[in-house]
């Protein structure tokens, strides 16, 4: 784990030094902040839901942009070869990069606390800190899932552009179950409906927005993120199968 931490620190440093990260981050914050401000002015409701809603789908585009270079570029440039010539496992490399990306995503969420400050300022009563904490937990967990899928995409190719494109597709998959769940054919079959509902990201995400932290939802995000990372590790290891 020591190696993963060192790799995470390096990745976070690289992201914080990259102008592209700031452009992406600024676009994300602009969209999230605008949506929040628009909803707040429209509804006059002191709730975090608008921010959480945009953080449900916007990271589909953001996460692949954060992770696209992480493995693809390393393989293309040859730094991956240098990295694994040291006593580092492939799993440590992937987990380290994931933690670095998650750290960057978390840092990106910090300015959104200004939205919470605005809520606190304009709301008539005290804010429900539990609701806000649960909302942020959901945002972070969903972000982690998207980042693991982005990293999986990056592990499959040496082209950063292709990695970003694949990442968009992969990140869309957990959302697509929610759409599938709306189909009458799926609803007609209770077993299929249960499966699709369980796989749907929204089913688990909305609990956090409502302020409910359920172990089943945490398990969903943890297991899906772990699956994404596991597949990324296997993809990195695939060079040994040739």
């Amino acid at each position: 784990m020591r190696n993963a931490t060192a790799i995470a620190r390096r990745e976070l440093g690289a992201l914080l030094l990259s102008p592209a990260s700031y452009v992406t981050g600024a676009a994300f914050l602009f969209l999230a902040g605008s949506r929040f401000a628009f909803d707040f002015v429209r509804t006059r409701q002191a709730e975090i839901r608008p921010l959480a809603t945009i953080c449900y789908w916007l990271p589909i585009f953001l996460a692949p942009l954060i992770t696209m270079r992480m493995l693809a570029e390393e393989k293309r440039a040859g730094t991956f070869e240098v990295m694994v010539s040291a006593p580092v496992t492939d799993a440590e490399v992937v987990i380290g990069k994931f933690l670095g990306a998650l750290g960057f995503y978390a840092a990106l969420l910090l300015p959104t606390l200004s939205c919470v400050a605005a809520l606190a300022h304009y709301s008539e009563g005290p804010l429900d800190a539990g609701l806000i904490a649960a909302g942020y937990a959901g945002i972070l967990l969903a972000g982690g899932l998207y980042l693991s899928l982005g990293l999986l995409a990056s592990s499959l190719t040496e082209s950063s552009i292709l990695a970003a494109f694949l990442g968009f597709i992969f990140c869309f998959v957990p959302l697509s179950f929610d759409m599938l769940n709306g189909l009458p054919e799926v609803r007609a079959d209770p077993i299929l409906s249960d499966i699709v509902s369980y796989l749907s990201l929204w089913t688990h995400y909305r609990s956090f927005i409502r302020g409910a932290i359920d172990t089943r939802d945490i398990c969903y995000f943890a297991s899906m993120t772990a699956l994404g990372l596991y597949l990324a590790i296997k993809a990195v290891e695939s060079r040994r199968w040739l």
Partner: protein
Amino acid sequence: MIRAEGITKRFGEFTAVSDASFEVGEGEVVGFLGVNGAGKTTTLRVLIGFYPATSGRAIVAGFDIAAESLKARRHIGYMPETTPMYGEMRVSEYLNFRASIKGIERKRRGAEVDRVVERAGLKEVRGQVIRTVSRGYRQRIGLADALLGSPKVLILDEPTSGLDPLQRMQVRQILREERHGRTVLLSTHILSEAEAACDRIIIIRRGRIVPEAEVEALRAVGMISVAVKTGDLAAARALLRAVPGVAEVRGGDVGTGDRTQRSDGGAGTAVLEAIPSDRNADLREAVFRTFAERSIPLLELRRTERSLEEIFGILTLRSADEDKSG
């Protein structure tokens, strides 16, 4: 120590390395030569555990690189050909990062980075961002990285590629100083470099290691180089040709290596080369007696070998011929 035991590496139908066996002992600096695509980098990648061999095994620093990869990699310093590194990092930051993932303890890390910075001559650029340093410095950063933690085994892929002669000399000097107690395997396509820096050469051709005996046979042509002081070049040539065992005499004619210099009136120095009919025969004594009997002064008499460049050329031509013949 590095021991390759029948390493074969296939990528699908393509065999990049076939049954490669060789050994590099402690304290040895061995050059690994081959034309582009001969299988050098693939072999080196198997040796560092980047990917496993399809068959055969490699023992590095006493550990099977496939079965005990992490243990083996703790003792390997590797420098790939293009010295890829993170351009946005500062030199010292990068080396610190490399030291941390190589398992060098935090309290020793600073001193170790200082040591390799000093050793590789990176003091001037240690605070500089890597993407702004010259190619020569990048090579040295790669070398400094390989030296971190004083690994028992150094595997260097083209460590002097792209360097100017002075920088090459500096890298050679570093290798000379760092070789003690280490095993160094370096691939290079600069043959003079290999001859200057290495104790021994391993040549790989079309994925196969050329047996050392074959290289030695090519090297030892048993040619005798004779520098005589004479005013009659034709007579000297005839005399040398008459020595029993001499098959051919070269040199002496204008355009074919005539190096006769008239410096003291009639007599000058002629350098002639005698090719023996049996490459293992040592004709020096016979040549000496022949010229001594005629009282012709011999200024120099030595048995020469083919240069590495010539050997490499012959092997490359053989490869091309084999390709043509299918």
